[in-house]
């Protein structure tokens, strides 16, 4: 039987590559969606056997809810068969791949599908030099720090005053500190990270 897979990923190029790789391995990708799409409607319409989702997407929690709703919805891979070693799940977590699978899919097929996804995500990350979620946070923090230093320098003010300036400007312009910091650095021709 062919395993029907739904891909949830905000990165179009990577999803297309994964689609191709899965097709070569004998799987069928039913559709690719962004998590901003209505996952409830998509899942009801396409009824996939498995979902592969970028682990960095908050939309995973929606899939968890669907998995609780009944047998026909895929369950998180971490819940699958006891005999499954945790290594694959760990590897997947490190690569940023999350999978949801219905009970009836054979473990060997699950392994194969997840391995394809891990390889695809890893090669894409290596190519694009992408950051993990934790690295993103550190980058954000550095950007905000640089913008703060810039304000202190150009206005000759202290750290507290610089923070208050950033806070007030962000509030007036309805931006987050990170967005504002990026803009300030770009405007002065400095690197934001």
């Amino acid at each position, binding site marked *: 039987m062919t395993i029907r897979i739904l891909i949830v990923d905000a990165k179009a190029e990577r999803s297309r590559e994964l689609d191709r790789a899965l097709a070569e391995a004998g799987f069928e990708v039913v559709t690719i969606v962004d998590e901003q799409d209505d996952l409830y409607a998509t899942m009801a319409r396409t009824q996939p056997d498995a979902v592969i989702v970028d682990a960095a997407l*908050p939309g995973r*929690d929606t*899939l*968890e*809810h669907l998995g*609780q709703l009944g047998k026909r919805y895929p369950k998180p891979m971490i819940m699958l068969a006891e005999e499954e070693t945790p290594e694959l799940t760990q590897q997947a977590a490190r690569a940023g791949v999350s999978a949801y699978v219905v009970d009836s899919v054979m473990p060997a097929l699950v392994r194969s599908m997840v391995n394809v996804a891990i390889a695809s995500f890893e090669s894409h990350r290596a190519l694009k030099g992408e950051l993990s979620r934790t690295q993103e*946070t550190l980058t954000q*923090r550095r950007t905000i720090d640089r913008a*703060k230093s810039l304000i202190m320098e150009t206005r000759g003010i202290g750290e507290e005053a610089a923070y208050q300036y*950033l806070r007030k400007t962000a509030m007036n312009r309805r931006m987050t500190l990170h967005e504002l910091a990026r803009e300030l650095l770009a405007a002065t021709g400095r690197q934001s990270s």
Partner: protein
Amino acid sequence: MNAIPADGPFTAPERRQVTLGMLPLNDVAPLVVALEEGFFAEQGLEVTLVVESSWASLRDGLQLGLLDAAQMLALMPLASTLGLDGRPTPVLSALTLNLGGNAITVSPELHARLLDVAPHGLDVPLEQARALARVVAARQRAGEAPLRFANVYPFSSHRYLLRYWLAAGGIDPDRDLDLRVVPPPQMVSQLEAGRLDGYCVGEPWNRLAVSRGSGVVLCDSFAIWGASPEKVLGVREAWADRYPATHRALLRALLAACAWLDDTPAHRERAARRLCMGGYLDVSPLVVEEGLRLPTQTASSSGMTLFHRHAANFPWRSQTRWYAAQMQRWGHLDASLDLEAALARCVRPDLYRQAADELELSCPLSDVKPGGEGAHAGPWTLPGSRGDIAMAADRFIDGEVFTA
């Protein structure tokens, strides 16, 4: 709170390096404060905070051992221990990180309809739920689609507080509404896009909707349950058994951070600043600050939260049992599971007492709330191990008292 001795004659932690998982939310403040204000370092710990994007990935990280401990929703240790959430893994909690902090927000359109059918106004939370019941009935008569309400995770306080509020107003959440899970950062945009009519979420996601004019806050979690525990520190039972001194050092550091947060309004502001400047929370600083203000005497409807006062950090077994009873009420907990054994295993007031005692804090003597959850309509006094503890009202929206 400065009286807390930072360096006591404590057993040195077995390991210095500890990795903690967190989600970008206002109430992760204790973890961020403990790191940035040096409370972890005072206890001899080098902590790395890992920002996760979903409760599911935080759960995976803890169950797979990629995280040593994590900020978790109050029900997650129980759900993990019972094998309902992810890989069956005994997870325990000896520390509640905060009480309250969530609120129910609806779209301006729904708010207008509620006002139309609320002859006594919408100031009283129970009246809000009753007004919603009238709107639901009118929609059913008109053949309109059910209203869509969201919460944040299957094993969340948000889900069960929302259901409790709905049911108190006479609504059957399963029959009358379309209930969904939506990640907090998407709540506001989905409300704006008309894909949701309301939600129950923590800050800053209620204030953000209000600040953008796209939502109206009806009531907060304290209005539904005056003592609702929100986030806890979760660790794998096996990890706590293997590194008891490290676990205790974590508990001491976080207790000190929680006490610091409830000490002065200035500390709350400083914490908001840490969250925004540290890159933990990508939301306008003012919205974060407002959501983190210290609750005042005056009633509020904005998702206020307590990190330490009124024995907030004590893991009352009766609190988790109440959530479990709600799961049973809605058919989300199989009757064949041994709930009491799991509760004894994953709610650990004994470990709390050890850590709090080292900081010379007075601890509740009983593992369940005296008189029952919801029995106190106003301030009350609880005898503790080192003197009386000032407690606050813990009433439920419908006046029920939970003594099971």
